[in-house]
């Protein structure tokens, strides 16, 4: 069933994109990006809505999810945030900036030899709380929060 849905989806988008192939705007070989961008979650206007969209109900607060970030960020256009998980079988990581116009910043999945660690650079509109949500292989979610003060917001112009 799942396979069939994927197949149908792939067929539909191929049909839609076909007219663009001739223009040279699109090059075949899109198999790389097998996943579809989670538009509804990424464009959600609140963290609660984004999480609802991803099917995450209540994440347990955990000390095993560690956020390393500056207490004060001078430039909200580039705030370096480092997340690591000490939870065994960590599969994925979500990064949210609660007061950004669209709070969900990134979803990162770890596979193979990758360790559950990521360093990411975020834009932050103002002083706010960020959260990192880790999902483990058993489907459970764990969260850590961190307040970052922003001197100069990094979203607008």
């Amino acid at each position, binding site marked *: 069933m799942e396979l069939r849905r994927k197949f149908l989806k792939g067929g539909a988008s191929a049909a839609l994109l076909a007219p663009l192939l001739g223009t040279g705007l699109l090059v075949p070989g899109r198999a790389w990006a097998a996943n579809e961008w989670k538009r509804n979650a990424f464009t959600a206007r609140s963290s609660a809505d984004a999480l609802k969209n991803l099917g995450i109900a209540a994440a347990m607060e955990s000390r095993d999810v560690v956020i390393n970030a500056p207490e004060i960020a001078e430039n909200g256009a580039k*705030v370096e945030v480092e997340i690591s998980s000490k939870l065994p079988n960590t599969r994925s990581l979500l990064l949210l900036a609660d007061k950004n116009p669209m709070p969900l910043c990134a979803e990162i999945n770890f596979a193979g030899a990758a360790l559950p660690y990521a360093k990411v650079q*975020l834009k932050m509109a103002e002083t706010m709380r960020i959260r990192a949500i880790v999902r483990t292989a058993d489907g459970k979610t764990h969260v850590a929060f961190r307040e970052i003060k922003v001197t100069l917001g990094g*979203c607008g112009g």
Partner: protein
Amino acid sequence: MSEPIRIRAQIQGEIADIRILMQHPMETGQRRDENGQTLAMHFIQLFTVKLNGQLLVEGQLNTSISKNPLFAFKARGVKAGDKLSVHWTDNNGAERQDEMTIA
């Protein structure tokens, strides 16, 4: 034409530190140019990192990731001669893939 992805890896004992710089405007769609025209949204939505062709990291991004973002990841058991490749796709359907061999 997009700028190359810069990939660096440093092996420290068992673990390799992987740093990836994706050169991209990451335009939010909220900024205006000097004439007051809104600059269209333009950002990387999907990326993958592979080690010798095997998936290592796969991610989805929003407009809130910084311009020319630098990422760091870690992996176990990486050796000299291994190949790291990174691929991204942006919201306009543009793609870029670059590969490096670990020294």
